[in-house]
């Protein structure tokens, strides 16, 4: 029989789940953005992750929600890339069968550029604008990290999961998490130094 998640005192209440999602949604969106580099796709990823959490894992204690949500989010991002790979394969095959001359006419390189996160801050004061520039550079550097290093860094430091939880969310060993985190920090430091940014 299915348990009623709302009446068991050990399980997360509707309010707890709502508060958790409200607290994590922007960070989740940013994480998805770093990975997929497209706002619409990132929003879809976060929405899918939220639906999966509430549909399948709502009958869990509130303390387990952060780790579960991160695992779902990472899996959803991976699913996104798998689907995109299949779609690109078919698109390539079909486009090669079609008219070759018109292949590049609909391609707009501007559409492949990631949306700037600071596009609505033009009216901010200069100091804030400089801060936003630094944030933008940091985000760009983060999005250039290898996927596993970025995952490990974000889960370990931004989501504040411990090493074991991060390893569980990433499906790897704790040693791998430490290695990924260390490499991510070094790579970020090098990239920011190259850009002349000091934090």
């Amino acid at each position, binding site marked *: 029989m*299915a348990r009623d998640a709302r009446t068991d005192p050990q399980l997360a209440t509707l309010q707890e*789940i709502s508060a958790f999602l409200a607290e994590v949604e922007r960070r989740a969106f940013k994480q998805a953005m770093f990975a997929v580099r497209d706002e619409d796709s990132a929003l879809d990823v976060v929405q899918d992750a939220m639906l999966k959490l509430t*549909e399948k894992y709502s009958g869990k204690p509130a303390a387990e929600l952060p780790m579960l949500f991160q695992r779902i989010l990472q899996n959803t991002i991976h699913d996104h890339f798998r689907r995109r790979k299949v779609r690109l394969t078919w698109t390539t095959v079909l486009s090669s069968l079609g008219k070759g001359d018109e292949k590049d006419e609909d391609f707009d390189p501007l559409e492949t550029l990631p949306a700037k996160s600071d596009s609505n801050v033009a009216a901010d004061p200069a100091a804030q604008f400089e801060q936003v520039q630094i944030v933008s550079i940091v985000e760009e550097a983060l999005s250039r990290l290898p996927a596993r290093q970025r995952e490990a*860094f974000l889960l370990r430091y931004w989501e504040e999961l411990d090493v074991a939880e991060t390893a569980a969310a990433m499906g790897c060993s704790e040693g791998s998490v430490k290695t990924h985190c*260390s490499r991510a920090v070094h790579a*970020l430091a090098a990239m920011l130094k190259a850009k002349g940014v000091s*934090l």
Partner: protein
Amino acid sequence: MSTEDPDFAKKIVTCLDRGAESVKAGAAYRLQLARQAALARLADPQRTAESQLASAHAGTGSGAMGGGRSFWASGRLWLGIAIIVAAGFGFQQWQAYQQLHDLEETDAAILSSDLPIDAYLDRGFQNWLKRASDED
């Protein structure tokens, strides 16, 4: 550098927090809608119970796919099994029909022959045929 890692990571995280706070209004609104949709699904106890029941039947799947999808996945599984069973049954029937058809053709050839059927069993007739062919 390893001793500086936590401090450096904290500074990076501070930047990331600022970035998350400055998510565009449109994206923030869509995130809010997504959250409400997820919570609405959670608030519907019938649907939640169905999805939990479906996941219990589906075992320990790695991906959370939604209750409806589990049902359809199960439906497709049974449809596939039914097609395989039907194909096996059809192949067996076709083989039996082919065997019967071959036997019918043999029987028809024997019965329509000018020779009586006992001639094929008569050793003397076979000896006569052999002798006749030797004389020719």
